Every structure is written in C-alpha cells, then in structure tokens.
C-alpha cells in the first residue's frame, strides 16, 4: 500500500521565444519560434501513507511542477502517477476530497473576510455537515493556536498567522495526504518554527501524510524523515534524512583567518580547499581520513592564526555537496 506512486513522470512546457524590439514582435506574430523547456524529466518515487517526505531543490528544479501534477492541476507530458488510488489528472475532483494543499505563494483564504468564513465555505466546497465542520474548526483552532485569529479579516493578519490559518484551512476536510508547496516562504525564523511544529503535530495526531517542497533545507531537516533532492527536473538523491546526515556529516568545515596574506595555492595534506581568500580560506575534510588534531596543527604551522572555526555542515551544505557531485553548478540552494 502506497500513498503516492510515481513512475517516469515527464512535463515539458512550450514557450514562445521573442526577439527583442518591434521587428521581433511582428516576426513572433507571423512565425512564432518555439522552444521546449523540460521542467520535469522522468521522476519516479514512492511514498507510504503517513510518511513525511521532503522535496528539496533550487528554484526551477521542478518541485512545484511535480506537486502540481500530483494534485491534478497540470497534465503531465508522459509518465504514470497514482495518488491515494487515483490518477490525479483524470480523477481530479475525486482526489481533491482526499488531499489538502497549501501553495505558499497562492493564498486560498479570502482576503477581506475573517478566516472562519473561508473555513465554513470550505466546509460547503467539500460537502461536509455543518455541525461536523464546527467541531473540526474548534479542533484545528486549538491545535494550531489560531482561535483568537479566526474572527479577524485575513488582510489584518501577519504572514505567519495567515500561513497557519492556510494550513488549518487545508485540513478542514480531514485529508489523508497534505501537499505543501513552499509553505514557509517569506517567514521569519520563529514563524517557520511554529508552522513546522503544527505540521508535525498533525502528522502525529491524525496520521496525515505530508509531501512538502521547500528550498529551505531547515524545513526538511526539522520535519521530514525522508528527503528527495531534485535538480533540473531529475531526482539526484533520495534517502532517509538521518542516512543523509550520517553519510555527509563525516566531513567538517573549517574557516580560517590569518594575520598575513595567504598564497593563492593554499592547501593542506588530506584536506579539500573550498575557497581561498586574501587573508583566509574555507576548507573541508573527512574526519575518518584526516584527524582534527592534525588539521589544526597544520593550520597553525602556516602562519599566525587570527581565528579558526570548525563546524558541521548544515543540511544546506550537504545538499550543495550533492548538487556538486551531480556535476551541476548551483548559485544558491
């Protein structure tokens, strides 16, 4: 039994290319030049019911496109998918009763109305009994600590408060699966933490499965058991978050600063040089091959040290490493 099963999913977009200027516009009008953009190229994965899975990748990697195919918003170019027993783009409406969605950049709450009005409207949209909806709202209000916000017009809520209400709204109809696309985008650290807490709580209390996309590794690290790393429309890594960390946390990162200038070919035995600046360098080494002790001794031998920081890489760094191993230059993860 799986909640989501995806096999060889492909989505191509056709875009029109326009040369600059009026001449280009006219030419595009008469003889449009088209270009195919491969947003998703053959993605396959599975997800068990009640699982918490994170989809991570840079902007334009194909995360959102995949989620949108899985909700039935987009028709795929090729491939098969099964979500809770439905083919999303064929049984969109049947599937919609069973899943909840939050698109961080596309609010679903009515802007001028208090959230509770949208909640009741959603009750009608999902054809729920009024009494049942009231109970459900009371339950969610407590779980999400939003009871005091429900009567306020949404336009007067802060972004963090609004997103909590958005997630609550997506749970009105007790879905089996929650699909979240960038739920934490634009939030500050505290608000992010609260959203993560509530999502985790709903997963534990109701056993709702969560598939989450984010370009913030922190979301995945705090929430997910399993991570799927995607770039340029293909899965480049998928494993348990703990395994990911175990495999990559064997490395340490060193930031070093000296009182005098360092040579541009600065390097130590058994240590990888990531970056060399004028007065310092950024290094990485594997503790299994090179002891910390030796690295510090070597660093001290190179000049008068001003500062040394040795740290574990963040998940963000880990993922960057994966991208690099994938042979892809990434500006920002």
């Amino acid at each position: 039994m799986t909640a989501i099963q995806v096999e060889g999913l492909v989505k191509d977009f056709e875009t029109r290319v326009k040369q600059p200027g009026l001449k280009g516009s006219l030419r595009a009008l008469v003889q449009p030049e088209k270009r195919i953009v491969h947003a998703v190229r053959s993605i396959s994965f599975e997800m068990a019911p009640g699982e918490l899975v994170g989809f991570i990748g840079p902007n334009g990697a194909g995360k959102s496109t995949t989620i949108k195919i899985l909700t039935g918003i987009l028709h795929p170019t090729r491939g098969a998918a099964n979500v809770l027993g439905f083919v999303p783009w064929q049984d969109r409406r049947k599937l919609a009763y069973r899943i909840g969605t939050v698109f961080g950049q596309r609010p679903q709450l009515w802007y001028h109305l208090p959230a509770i009005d949208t909640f009741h409207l959603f009750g009608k949209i999902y054809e729920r009994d009024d009494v049942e909806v009231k109970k459900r709202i009371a339950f969610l209000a407590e779980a999400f600590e939003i009871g005091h916000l429900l009567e306020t017009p949404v336009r007067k809520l802060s972004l963090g408060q609004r997103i909590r209400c958005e997630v609550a709204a997506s749970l009105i109809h007790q879905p089996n699966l929650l699909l979240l696309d960038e739920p934490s985008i634009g939030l500050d650290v505290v608000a992010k933490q609260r959203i993560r807490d509530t999502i985790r709580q709903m997963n534990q209390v109701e056993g709702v499965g969560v598939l989450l996309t984010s370009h913030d590794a922190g979301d995945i690290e705090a929430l997910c058991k399993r991570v799927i790393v995607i770039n340029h429309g293909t899965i480049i890594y998928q494993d348990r978050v703990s395994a990911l960390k175990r495999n990559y946390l064997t490395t340490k990162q060193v930031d070093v600063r000296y009182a005098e200038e360092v040579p541009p070919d600065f390097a130590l035995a058994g240590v990888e040089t990531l970056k060399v600046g004028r007065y310092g360098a950024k290094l990485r080494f594997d503790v299994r091959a090179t002891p910390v002790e030796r690295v510090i001794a070597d660093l001290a031998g190179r000049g008068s040290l001003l500062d040394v920081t040795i740290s574990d890489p963040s998940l963000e760094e880990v993922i960057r490493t994966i991208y690099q191993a994938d042979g892809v230059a990434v500006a920002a993860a």
Partner: protein
Amino acid sequence: MIREMRFLLALWKANLLSAMEYRVSFILQVLGMMLNNAAYFVFWFIFFERFESVRGWGLVDMFVLFGIVAASFGLGVFLFGNIRFLADMIAEGRMDYYLSLPRPVLLHSLASRSTISGLGDFIYGLISFALAGQYSPDAVLRFALGVVVGTTVLVAFLTIAQSLAFWIGSASMIAMQASNAIVTFSLYPLTLFDGTAKLILFTILPAAFIGSVPAEFVRAFSWEQLAQMSLAAVGLLALAIWVFQRGLRRYESGSAIQVQV
C-alpha cells in the same frame, strides 16, 4: 445539480460578506452605476423627442432593450465577477486554487468574485423595464427569460474570449475589447444593421441575443424567437465549457512564469 447550487449559494454569500466589509463603498457603487446608466439613457430621451421612432423602435422599446441588456450584464458580472479577469487568472497561473478543490473549475472560478456595481446595473435594468409599463404576467415572465438568456450568452461569450489566454498567453486586452464591443452593439436595435453586420451579431459577436432578440420577444411572444434564444444560450454555453476544458489541458500554472528564456 443541487450539490452545485448549494455550493454556489455559499460562494455568493461569501462574496456578499466580502463586499459588506466596505458598506459605504457598496452603496455608492450600486447607486453610482444606476445613475451612470440613466445619464446614458438621456441620449434616447432627446433622440426620441425629435424623431419618435427609428426602424420600428420607439422609446418604450428602448426601455425594454436597456432593461434586458443592463439586467443581463449586471447579473453576469455580479454573480460571475471573474468573467472580467479570467484571462489574467489563466496567464498568471491563478487557476491552481480552483484546480485543487473538488468543484467544477469554470463555475467555481467565475463565481468567486462579485462586481458590486453589477447590482446597480441589474436594478437599473429592472427599473428600465418597469418604465416600459408592460405589467402583464406573461410579459414579466418573458422579460425574466430574456434576462436569463442574455446573461448566459454574455457570460459564455466572454468565457470564450477570455479562454484565448490558454493559447495566446495575454488575452485580457482582446477580451476587454470583445466585452465593450458586444455591450455596445447589444444596446442598439438590430434593425439598424443589415446583411453581413447582422450575420456577425448573430454569430461571432452574438450581441443580438443579449439585446434585440429578447427585447422583441418581450414585446410579443414568438416560437421562432424562443427557439433562437434557447438554442443560442445552450449552444454557446456548451461551446464555452468545451473551449475552457480544452484550454485547461494546456494550462501551465505559475511554473511558466519561472521559465524565462
């Protein structure tokens, strides 16, 4: 059907609640639009003061015509307010929301917004019809039917125009001009036009069914016009739904915005 009706009622209630957040603006918009229409109608008062009738149409007929058009337009944009923004919603990927909920996408998206001034148009339409002085029950019934047909044809036509966005990207300008054109033409007696112009007003730009045909139908019952109107309303509605559904398959969501060449 009943399920969708119940859902529509909830949606319209939410629209109304939204509008009521700004009570004064609500009343001003409704009254303003009524006065606005009245100001335009002064033209016909002056016109018929001097000419009495043009091609078989007099002041009373014009009251009925304005009644049908204003009530149809008003009802259309009040109940299906997104009919004016559909092209932008498609181009900007704002259909995601409707696609992720278990309701018919076209119906849901159109009814999710209410143009308040439309209520002013609608009330003005009723007043205009009342001024025509045709109070027999069957005339009132024919007027009501005419408004339903006018609203359906208008909403269906605009849906098709706005759905062009699925194929050509930004269609809001074309849709706006199509809207202006169909309303302008529907406000004049059909007998003014001949040959090709008339053919266009029955087909590509079906203004005849929003104005003159229902207005003549109110004046006197005729099976032929009833058949024409029913056929136009059902046919155009089916066509609009078909075009929209075809378009949805090409829908690119917001991802297309990120794909910059």
